[in-house]
């Protein structure tokens, strides 16, 4: 009876989890072994063919390289910037509330609106960026229309967006640190850098791990500003994995192949997360 009661209490959460998380994942895994159903032609078992298509798809590999580059740049940059901002607004500086708010603003703005604003920042000839570089006497540059800078432009927007969000976690963590540590360090005559390196940074490790998990996930699920800014172009120079997945799934309606890409993406992210929880998590707590 008690067990039944417990299961009944768990039921709503179980139903939601199963319907929106577990079943779609399993269904996607199964679909990845079938061809795409079209109209009245149902999907048939094709084994690993979708995975073979993926291995031979140059756009997929371009998206993988781009995404690794993107993640490799956004993760350290946004975390580092977040930490710097948090350390700064944790001090007693004039206009502290206003500065905190300014840093956090990008996080609360809708991404599509933000991307549209950035689109005009990057516009050749009269965009904000061009006004600045033009005033410095530098030549005009088509930031989003050039394959060598398109991805970097998207990265900048992502860092700008993420850093404010991560700052909140660091700020919260900094405020839980025991103030007597700072006083002790001051009495010992430790420099600010030593205090940060030997005391604050080790104590912030659990927060850094949490932020890192989020940063990695965000690094691979970034898609919204690609739509507005470049649509993956020019010539796939700024295609990211999730955007490629969207194109295959909802533009080309090749759901079989899209399922295979989803499976690869989920497996990769899951293994990164497992590594973080089982290996890194044991090492971050300062004892």
């Amino acid at each position: 009876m008690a067990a039944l009661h417990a299961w009944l209490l768990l039921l709503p959460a179980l139903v939601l989890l199963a319907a929106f998380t577990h079943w779609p994942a399993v269904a996607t895994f199964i679909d990845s072994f079938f061809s795409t159903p079209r109209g009245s032609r149902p999907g048939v078992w094709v084994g690993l063919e979708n995975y073979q298509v993926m291995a031979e798809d140059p756009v997929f590999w371009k998206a993988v390289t781009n995404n690794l580059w993107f993640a490799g740049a956004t993760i350290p940059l946004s975390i580092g910037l977040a930490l710097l901002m948090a350390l700064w607004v944790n001090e007693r500086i004039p206009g502290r509330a206003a500065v905190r708010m300014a840093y956090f603003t990008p996080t609360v703005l809708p991404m599509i609106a933000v991307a549209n604003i950035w689109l005009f920042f990057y516009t050749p000839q009269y965009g904000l960026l061009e006004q600045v570089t033009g005033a410095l006497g530098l030549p005009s540059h088509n930031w989003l229309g050039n394959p060598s800078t398109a991805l970097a432009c998207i990265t900048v927007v992502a860092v700008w967006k993420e850093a404010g969000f991560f700052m909140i976690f660091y700020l919260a963590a900094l405020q839980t640190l025991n103030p007597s540590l700072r006083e002790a360090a001051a009495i010992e005559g430790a420099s600010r850098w030593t205090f940060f390196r030997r005391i604050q940074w080790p104590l912030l490790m659990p927060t850094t791990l949490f932020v890192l998990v989020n940063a990695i996930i965000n690094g691979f699920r970034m898609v919204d500003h690609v739509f507005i800014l470049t649509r993956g172009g020019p010539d796939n120079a700024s295609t990211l994995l999730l955007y490629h997945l969207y194109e295959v799934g909802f533009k080309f309606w090749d759901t079989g192949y899209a399922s295979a890409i989803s499976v690869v993406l989920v497996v990769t992210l899951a293994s990164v997360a497992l590594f973080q929880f089982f290996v890194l998590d044991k090492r971050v707590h300062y004892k």
Partner: protein
Amino acid sequence: MQRKTFNRGVAALAAAAALGIGGAARAQQQVEIPFFYPVAVGGPIAKIIDGFANDFMKANPGIKVTPIYAGTYQETIVKALTAHKAGTPPVFSVLLSTDMFTLIDEDAIVPVDGFVKTAEDKAWMGSFYKAFMLNSQAGGKTWGVPFQRSTVVMYWNKEAFKEAGLDPNKAPQTWAELKSMATKLTKKDSSGKVTQYGVQIPSSGFPYWLFQTLTTTNDAILANEAGTQVKFDDPKVVEALQYWVDLGKAGVHPPGVVEWGTTPKDFFEKKAAIIYTTTGNLTNIRSNAKFDFGVGMIPANKRKGSPTGGGNFYIFKKASPAQQEAAFKFIKWVTAPERAAQWSIDTGYVAVSPAAYETPPLKKYGSEFPPALVARDQLPHSVAELSTHDNQRVTKALNDGLQAALTGAKPPAQAMQDAQREADRLLRSYK
């Protein structure tokens, strides 16, 4: 929760349910037909569409039309096809005319021919411009009804022409003239930075469509009518791409990929003296340009021409027969000459039938503002917009090739050969 409030809540729910049933009974006499539409040009499109729906409902009390704005063309087809796969598609929708083969392959739509019964219906079907029907018919059936249709036209800044010492009333007529005029129109500041480009042809979003203005005028057709074969590596196609790339190399066209969405703004801001864009931007440009401008046909090389573009109405297969009939009635009503004329005046889109240009409002508008008639005059030279089976993917192969050539990553010939190889692979199973 207290028992009393709980009981009251139950009573309220029961009352609501009873009302709901009553509502359903009333709705049986009224057919509801939701439809999705995209917005692809500037201007108050949503307001105009809502106005049409209200006027239609006043005249037909038995039908409730619900227009639903669904984003860009791309977002609209994603929503419509997802809903189709989930079993509840809109009754009808405005989607790109080039998505016809995709919709047929997905078994999502029904041909319009089945609703055409009376002589009046037949006359209506025959009333559209032939150029627009090229992207609306396949396999001997008509699948789409032309609605927000367009062609690419050229806009030029007359003041910039005067400043450059050119005749402001004489637009470039040929590729050679376009290039030489663009050279004169390109302005640089003291440091050598370009402040005004001579010509700008956008290449983001749907580069293939703008590229068709060059292939068509070079007398090349990109795809066959059945949508199963493309000719991207035709020497005439490569030559057309070479011309586009050369404009950039000569410094009279902006480098890299040019954004579609900001091109009209570049024109108002005098950053480009000549632009290529849809005639659907006419009203937008007319209300924003602070200078005298001209609208002209696309400059010719071997021949005149431009692809048609824009959206058709499609009726979805999974809607009930009563809904499909009601949708057909609305489509017929909204494409009638007087509405088509109004739509053309309000937006700049081409009216879909010659009869619309004979209505007094559009005749008057055309005589006061002759640029509104350029797109119509270009229609006899127009060709079908690139459309094949697996359309989005085949088109992407071409778009990627175009962008690779425009950014200098690949020479035009190689870019087109790569696109051809990819397209052949994709179309293999449709032959």
